[in-house]
């Protein structure tokens, strides 16, 4: 055990938050799995629990493995991974799984393991690291818009256009994250505006093409439109039905909730183990549970900011934010969907929702963040070792304080 803790590097608070969330996730997952078992008729409750445990265990292993990698290697990795990701996206799109007639080719099955893999989440991670790398590269020079087009925006455009037909919300979120990262990374604002404009034009073109030639290629344009419409108007639709159930769950939860496993709405909410798990958590654990969860994610955000702050170089900072902010965004978007602040998007609650890819990609991101923070620790240790050598007796108490932010 001692040995294990010795080997764990990086921000201990992040480790703690991740473990807390992972441990907590068993409760709602086990409770809501009755929906999958008795309503959908899929597997057994114990089966779902064991599967979730296995996924989390592998996830923690991923975190451990990744955080041992010095973060400078991720620059090179993102360059290598980019073509692989694009290939995977092509395969995913090509196999064309449909849900209710609409294109939902989001997953590919990993051969032999038998686990579905949502390629877009991996693609998002790789793309953001790629953007962070590029922004670091151009940090010291003044760039013209034209010269950024090929190295920066071409990969973004290719990846997003491959995800878009099957998954608008993920595309939009990834696009938003890229914009955010560019904004933080000092990319000129006027260029960003043109890119946003171009993005909207592309989307409009896509929707119009899909509308004009419905049989041309599989897409989910109709689903998006109906979802957005249902968010805007009062008519009863499938999404409204889901949202209403989520709100019923939230309202019945009250302050302390019904108690673990006593959720009623879990049986009526589709996706109660993934997209709408927050509503189930509020129903079972009440406002207390809801606020705790919000607090944990905010704590995670705070530690990410701290890690970014402490990171010694621009790539370190941008890398942490590139992989860290999407987790936080995804978490709050998921919650916002449950309380009807946001249209139904199908974003999972990071580290809580079931679903292999979601957990693993989050773990990958956490591992990257920890890797950056672990590097910093090494430096601090080295620096303090030097400092101790210099002024043998006296230790500067401010040195420790400075570590806090």
């Amino acid at each position, binding site marked *: 055990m001692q040995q294990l803790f010795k080997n764990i590097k990086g921000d201990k608070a992040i480790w703690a938050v991740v473990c807390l969330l992972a441990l907590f996730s068993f409760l709602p997952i086990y409770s809501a799995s009755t*929906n999958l078992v*008795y*309503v959908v008729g899929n597997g057994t409750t114990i089966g779902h629990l064991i599967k979730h445990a296995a996924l989390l265990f592998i996830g923690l292993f991923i975190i451990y493995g990744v955080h041992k990698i010095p973060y400078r290697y991720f620059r090179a990795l993102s360059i290598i991974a980019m073509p692989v990701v694009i290939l995977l996206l092509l395969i995913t799109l090509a196999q064309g799984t449909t849900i209710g007639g609409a294109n939902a080719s989001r997953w590919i099955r990993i051969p032999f393991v038998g686990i579905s893999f949502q390629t877009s989440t991996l693609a998002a991670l790789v793309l953001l690291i790629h953007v962070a790398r590029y*922004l670091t590269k*151009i*940090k*010291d*020079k*003044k*760039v013209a818009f034209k010269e950024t087009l090929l190295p920066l925006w071409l990969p973004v455009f290719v990846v997003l256009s491959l995800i878009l037909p099957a998954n608008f919300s993920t595309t939009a979120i990834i696009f938003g994250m890229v914009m*955010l990262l560019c*904004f*933080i*990374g*000092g*990319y*000129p604002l006027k260029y960003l505006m043109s890119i946003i404009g171009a993005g909207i034009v592309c989307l409009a073109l896509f929707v119009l093409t899909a509308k004009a030639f419905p049989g041309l290629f599989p897409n989910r344009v109709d689903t998006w439109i109906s979802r957005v419409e249902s968010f805007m108007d009062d008519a009863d639709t499938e999404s409204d039905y889901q949202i*209403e159930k989520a*709100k*019923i769950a*939230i*309202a*019945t*939860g*009250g*302050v302390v909730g019904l108690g673990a496993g006593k959720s*009623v*709405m879990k*049986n*009526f909410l589709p996706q109660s183990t993934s997209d709408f798990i927050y509503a189930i958590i*509020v129903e079972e654990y009440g*406002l207390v549970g*809801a*606020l705790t969860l*919000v607090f944990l*994610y*905010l704590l995670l*955000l*705070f530690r990410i*900011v701290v890690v*970014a*702050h402490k990171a010694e*170089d*621009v790539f370190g*900072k*941008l890398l942490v*934010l590139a992989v860290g*902010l999407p987790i*936080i*965004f995804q978490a*709050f978007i998921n*919650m*916002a969907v449950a*309380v*009807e*602040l946001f249209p139904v998007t199908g974003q999972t609650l990071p580290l809580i929702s079931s679903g292999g890819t979601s957990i693993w990609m989050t773990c990958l991101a956490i591992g990257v963040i920890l890797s950056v923070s672990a590097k910093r620790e090494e430096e601090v240790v080295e620096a303090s070792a030097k400092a101790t050598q210099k002024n043998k007796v006296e230790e500067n108490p401010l040195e420790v304080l400075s570590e806090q932010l």
Partner: protein
Amino acid sequence: MPTTEKHILNRLYVIAGLIFVFAVAVVVKLVSIQTVDGDKYRELASERTVKNFTIEPNRGNLYSDDGSLLATSVAKYDIRFDALAPNSENFEKHIKPLSDSMSVMFGKSSSYYQNLFRKARATKNRYMLLSRNLGYTDYIRVKSFPLFNLGPYKGGIIVEQETKREYPLGKIAKRSIGYDRLSNPVGLEGAFNQYLEGKEGHRLKQKIAKGQWKPITDYNEVEPQDGYDVVSTIDVNIQDIAHHALLAQLEKYKADHGCVVVMDVESGEVKAISNLGRTENGKYYEKLNYAVGESHEPGSTFKLMSVIAALEDKVVDTNYVVDTEKGILTFYNRYKVRDSKWGGYGKISLSEAFERSSNTGIVKVIDKFYGDDPKRFVNRLYNMRLNEPLGLAIKGEGEPFIPHPNDKERWSGIALPWMAYGYGVQMTPLQILTFYNAIANNGVMVKPRLIKEVKEWNRTVMKFDKEVINSSICSQETIDKVKALLKNVVEKDHGTGHKLYSPNFSMAGKTGTAQKNYAAKDRQKLQYISSFAGFFPADSPKYSCIVVIHEPDKSVGIYGADVSGPVFKRVAQKIYTDSPVIDTVKDLEKPNPSVEEKYRAYYSKVQNHSNIIPDVEGMSGMDAVSILENLGVKVKVVGNGKVRKQSVKSGSKINKGQTIVLQLS
């Protein structure tokens, strides 16, 4: 584009701040859902997911007076077949023996059932009806058939249980027993519904999914309370007799409808009540409760009331001679009272007028003595409670009607003479019977009762005792006189009911043949109501009975004695032959003095005479033989009865093997 680390961090703080604001917004929205819209959604939650299930109580049983079941609730089973549940191997293996078993039980050929099962499997029928309303034993038998004995999941048998109300007597007294239906339950079932139905229980259940509901708690929120059992006064045997006697007569006379009620004189318990109405195809069934609900002009049966009023007021006596005026009496030059016999009966006594049912005779007497003061007559009737309903527990009792001279709208000059022979007044058969029963019961008018007791298992919840409406409707003297009149109706040769006379049993009563629709211009529409009300045995009445038959076929017969009387007679006769009065030994413990005396004499002789011949003269032959043989003497017996003479004198010594001859007589 020189980007400093500070630059990055500043922008990061802005973004982090925005995320924090977003988080706050989520929390605010969440709290608002819980508080502002909370009630609405919580209500929706209970509306959508919680349901109050009703648990039906078991309905109580309805018993006859001797405890036989009239109505009970039993479990019935519907058997259905899920043709896709069994796998092919089981299906093919068992289909033949299963079809054979079905064939044996339900009669159709085995191949028919094989076809049925195969077709159901081919068409993927998962809910094929095989049999409805099976009793428990039949259901158990079907369940044990090949394939079905594998159970619902492997064998595909679907069993649905239902609680059905069963009437062991079938159509007999169906209307009086009534039936339990949601709206307007009728008969005893309806009248005593409040006792029989019990109270519903409630259980809250929560929807799980796909139409499945789970109970929220381990117990029922409200436990169902089973209905009480009701013991009625109906005697199954008498009911059976009355029903069939009435049915036979209705069929014979092709009458529209009729009813018969048998009542226990002393207690007022209704032993039988049968109402039969004609359907379009000429069959009869328990249609409406005519006996209780149908008020009609009684006709001649009402003459009893008139005569009693006159006798009670002592305006006439039974030997008063009245001129029947050649059979026609005219009032106001227009309104005529006719006798059924053309030309009338001449001058006859009041009793004969009653026995012959002379309309003119009775009307003339009443008109003569009450014409000046009709109030006196009507008040007398009112005193006997003839104008008041009985207040029965069964719903729908018809209102009696007797106009009063104070009621100017409904009273007229001819009201009194018309009333005297039963027109212009309305009574239900049960109300008339109650009056006749009071006469049989020596003036004590008891309320007819259909219910004896309400029970919960063996515990009595409520007991219904005899209820006296009027302890003395008239003097004993009057009663004795009219009882004789009623008896003479049957016994006297000139009595209208003499056709019913039988030397084997006695009965008393009054015939009635009332006209119906007499106001109609079309003589074809004129119909008759034939009735007979009375009691039996004539001298010490045990049962009273009324038979009313509406609209008999005029070509077959109309008179009360012909149409209704036979029903009455049949009921009386049957009750006598089918339910004999059984003498019971009241007190077995109490010694019979004469037997005791004989036993003592016998005992003393056995004790005292061990070697001499005892005196057995005067003893019964059986005793004498046993005493003597026990002493070792051979006994020869001549004749029967008591010992008259013994061949060996008492006191002489016994020789073993000696023979003694006893002469009995």
